[in-house]
C-alpha cells in the first residue's frame, strides 16, 4: 500500500518546544517558512547589491518583479494604492516563493496549510478595514450602500455585508485549496506509477502513461503556483482600492 497522498501535508515537529502548556515546536512548516523568507531576502539582497544603470541578469529580475507588482497595484488601486506597495509586494513574493518551493519533491508546501493562508488573509483584510476607517471614518460603512433607490438597497445591503464577510474565507480558501488539490493530484499520479510499476508484466510498461502525465501536471502546477500568488495579490489590491475609494470612482 502506497503512502496516503495526504501525508505530505502533515506538520511534524522537528525541535519539540513546550511552553506553559502550549506546543510551540519548531516544525517542518516553520523550517520551510524560514527557507522561503531567507531565499527571497537573499535573492533581493544579492540582486540589488551592485545597483548599476545597465542591470545585470539578477538585478533585472528583481526590477521586473518590482515593476510587475507596481503596475498591478497602479492598475487595480490607482496612484494612492502605491502606499501599500510594501505589503502587497511582500505578500506576493512570499506566496509565489512558497508555492514554487513546495513544488520541489520532498519539500513542504507552506501555503497548503489553511493556518498560513488565513493569517495572510487576515493581515490583508485588517489592513483594508483599518485603512477604510482611517480615511473615511464612520463613512466607511457607505461601502455597504452603493448609490441605489431605497427598495433596491433593502436587498443590496445584506448582500454587500455577506460578500464583505465572505472575502477573508474565499481569499484564504482559494490559495489553500489550490495548493492542496494540486499536490494531492501529483501524489495520486505518483501512486499510480508505483503501483503499476510494481505489478509486473505489461503493467510495468503502462506505468509510463501516468509518468508522462506527471510531467505535464507539474508544468501546470508551476502555472498555478504563479497564478495563485498573482490572484491573491490582485484581489488584495482590489479590496484596498474599495477601502480607499469606496464606490466613487475607479
Amino acid at each position: 500500500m502506497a503512502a496516503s497522498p495526504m501525508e505530505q501535508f502533515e506538520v511534524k515537529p522537528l525541535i519539540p518546544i513546550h511552553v506553559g502548556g502550549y506546543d510551540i515546536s519548531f516544525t517542518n512548516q516553520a523550517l520551510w517558512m524560514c527557507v522561503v523568507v531567507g531565499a527571497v531576502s537573499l535573492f533581493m539582497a544579492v540582486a540589488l547589491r551592485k545597483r548599476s544603470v545597465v542591470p545585470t541578469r539578477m538585478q533585472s529580475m528583481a526590477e521586473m518583479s518590482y515593476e510587475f507588482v507596481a503596475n498591478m497595484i497602479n492598475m487595480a488601486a490607482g496612484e494612492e494604492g502605491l502606499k501599500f506597495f510594501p505589503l502587497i509586494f511582500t505578500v506576493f513574493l512570499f506566496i509565489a516563493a512558497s508555492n514554487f518551493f513546495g513544488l520541489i519533491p520532498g519539500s513542504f508546501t507552506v501555503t497548503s496549510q489553511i493556518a498560513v493562508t488565513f493569517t495572510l488573509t487576515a493581515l490583508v483584510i485588517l489592513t483594508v478595514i483599518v485603512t477604510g476607517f482611517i480615511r473615511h471614518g464612520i463613512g466607511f460603512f457607505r461601502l455597504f450602500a452603493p448609490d441605489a433607490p431605497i427598495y433596491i438597497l433593502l436587498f443590496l445591503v445584506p448582500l454587500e455585508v455577506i460578500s464583505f464577510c465572505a472575502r477573508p474565507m474565499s481569499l484564504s480558501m482559494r490559495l489553500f485549496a489550490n495548493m492542496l488539490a494540486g499536490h494531492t493530484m501529483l501524489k495520486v499520479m505518483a501512486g499510480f506509477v508505483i503501483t503499476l510499476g510494481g505489478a509486473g508484466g505489461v503493467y510495468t510498461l503502462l506505468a509510463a502513461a501516468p509518468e508522462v502525465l506527471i510531467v505535464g501536471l507539474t508544468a501546470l502546477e508551476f502555472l498555478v503556483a504563479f497564478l495563485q500568488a498573482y490572484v491573491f495579490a490582485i484581489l488584495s489590491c482590489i479590496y484596498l482600492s474599495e477601502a480607499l475609494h469606496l464606490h466613487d470612482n475607479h
Partner: protein
Amino acid sequence: MDMIHAAKFIGAGLATIAFVGSGIGIGVVFGNYISGALRNPGAAQSQFTNLYIGYALCELQGLFGLLIALILMYT
C-alpha cells in the same frame, strides 16, 4: 457504522461535481476574453485584471465543493 463511512465517501464523490460548474465558468471567462481580445487587441491588456478576477471567482465555486469533500472524508 460502515453505512456512514460509505455514505461519506459517496457524498465526497458527489461534492466534486461542483467542478463541472467551475470548468464551465472558466471556459466562458477565458473564451470570451480571447474572442474579445481578438476583436479589439488594443483593449486586451487593460482587461487582464478583470480576466483573472473572473477566473478566480469561477474557480472558487469549484473549490468549495472540494472543501466539502475534504470535510466529509476527514471529519
